């Protein structure tokens, strides 16, 4: 793990981000309709649409618009939302925090639950416990988020039970109890599927490790099982667990889109869908940039952590 390697990885990330934003830009240029048409809708006459386009700067050639945007980003200015008349950084910033709160809640809960589940399943491999956990994991991994979310809504938030609110957001600062009740279902939806993935991976890795030679050696040495697991098996399984968690960040970034939409959680996912529908180019660009950056950086960090945890891994 050299400094040179890190630099090269970072440069690659930057290149990718540049390509992604250019691609997004090109995409929205090709699309029929633009923000001005969407804003005025069926009450737009050709004159008022043209006037609004001028006002929003949509009548400039595409390369001017793109260069303008890139210049802005390098200065730290993400532009103005075409639909919402607010600075993009404000709109995206707030949404980012809301999404982060949801994602972190889901991840923390999942890590606390999924890793122990995987460990238990590996230790008690072949028993009823393993089967149950395995079944749960399989089912969890086969349900798309919108199915899980909808079923949870029907059972837990329906008029019959009314245990939890069916959506909405309360900031932890405003009311912690309110926050908890509103975050349970969306985080739970994300968490169920994440738990399924992670616990399966942990189980699989743990099983491999438990069958490996040095564990056999430790057992032969007469060490107690608990110690074997804690001092020898667990640390070696952690590296792949981190790898899986980082892979799941990718899933999380996608799952969040659907979950936020269903539960009316004002985060990046919902913002993206709204921006795509309304052709709000600066917001689409900013959200894509942000999501791609988070993903790329988390992969990079995961790679570093794995290398640190597992000295057998070598990087050119």
């Amino acid at each position: 793990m050299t400094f040179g390697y890190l630099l090269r990885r970072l440069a690659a990330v930057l290149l990718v981000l540049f390509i992604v934003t250019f691609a997004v830009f090109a995409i929205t240029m090709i699309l029929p309709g633009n923000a001005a048409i969407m804003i005025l809708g069926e009450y737009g006459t050709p004159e008022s649409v043209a006037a609004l386009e001028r006002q929003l700067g949509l009548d400039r050639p595409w390369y001017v618009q793109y260069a303008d945007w890139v210049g802005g980003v390098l200065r730290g200015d993400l532009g103005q939302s075409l639909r919402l008349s607010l600075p993009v950084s404000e709109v995206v910033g707030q949404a980012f925090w809301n999404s982060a709160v949801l994602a972190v809640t889901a991840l923390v809960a999942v890590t606390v639950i999924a890793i122990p589940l995987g460990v238990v399943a590996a230790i008690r491999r072949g028993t009823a416990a393993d089967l149950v956990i395995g079944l749960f994991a399989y089912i969890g991994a086969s349900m798309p988020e919108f199915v899980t979310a909808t079923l949870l809504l029907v059972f837990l938030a329906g008029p019959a039970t009314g245990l939890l609110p069916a959506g909405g957001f309360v900031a932890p600062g405003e009311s912690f109890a309110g926050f908890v009740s509103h975050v349970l279902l969306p985080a739970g939806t994300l968490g169920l599927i994440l738990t399924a993935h992670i616990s399966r991976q942990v189980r699989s890795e743990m099983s491999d490790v438990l069958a490996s030679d040095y564990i056999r050696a430790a057992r032969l040495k007469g060490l107690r099982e608990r110690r074997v697991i804690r001092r020898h098996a667990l640390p070696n399984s952690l590296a792949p667990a981190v790898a899986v968690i980082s892979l799941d960040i990718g899933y999380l970034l996608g799952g969040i889109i659907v979950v936020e939409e269903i539960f009316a959680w004002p985060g990046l996912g919902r913002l993206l869908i709204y921006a795509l529908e309304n052709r709000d180019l600066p917001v689409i660009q900013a959200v894509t940039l942000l999501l791609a950056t988070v993903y790329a950086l988390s992969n990079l960090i995961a790679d570093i952590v794995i290398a640190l945890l597992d000295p057998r891994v070598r990087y050119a």
Partner: protein
Amino acid sequence: MPEILRSPTGIAGAVLLSLVAVAVLAGSFVAPYDPQAFHPATRLTGPSAAHWLGTDQFGRDLLSRLLNGAPSTIGFGLGATLLGVGAGTVIGVIAGTAGGWVDSVIMRVLDGLLAVPELLFTLLIVTILGGGMGQAMLAVALAFTPGMARIARSSVLSIRTREYVLAAVARGEPGCYIVLREVLPNALGPIIVEATIRVSFAIMIGATLGFLGLGAQPPSTEWGLMVAEGRQFMFRNPWVVAVPGVAIALAALGFNLFGDALRDSLDPRRSVRG
């Protein structure tokens, strides 16, 4: 192959897949009603003698719609995966066999594409192409290609140094022959396993796109779209969302279980441990 059917996951997977296959192949013939026909007098009712799974907001029979939607939902999954696997395998094999700068360039590009989270990538492509099943399938295939290429490549790389390949090279066999007769058949294993599991993802993503209104369009009976359209009625008749939702889960589950069993049976370490 038969070993798969000895493990519980294999059996469960095979059972589910058989059910799915029946629905896809024979569904339209077995369906009791025209999936689009309205029965307004009995709208939004649960299971009954006349409608085994209930009816939706227009009074359309849910069982018939489910069977009718099987080909499009599953077909989407299979089609997108086949396309993605096909394209990805070709690219990965090229990278793996060619080596050198060709390999490097392809890897860089793949890394770049893999930097974008899958659903986001799919969403962006689908938005360009406009909604619709064909476009969504293309988008998902494109999103799968880099991942599949990577797997194909690493599979090829590990085969390249096997004795039988080296022997073929020593014999002076032409490149194409080596690739087609020695490398590919042995590299296919991991690719097929990955592909089977990917079908379940493709089904889920396809349903999600249908749900978001970016995939199948009304009045299609694609299962994700059925859930989306049924949501506003879900408290009046939960069957409207439960039926397609559970069907999606079962189909994805079937492919998942079968793919895992396949992987276990192909992996020599695991079959030794049993």
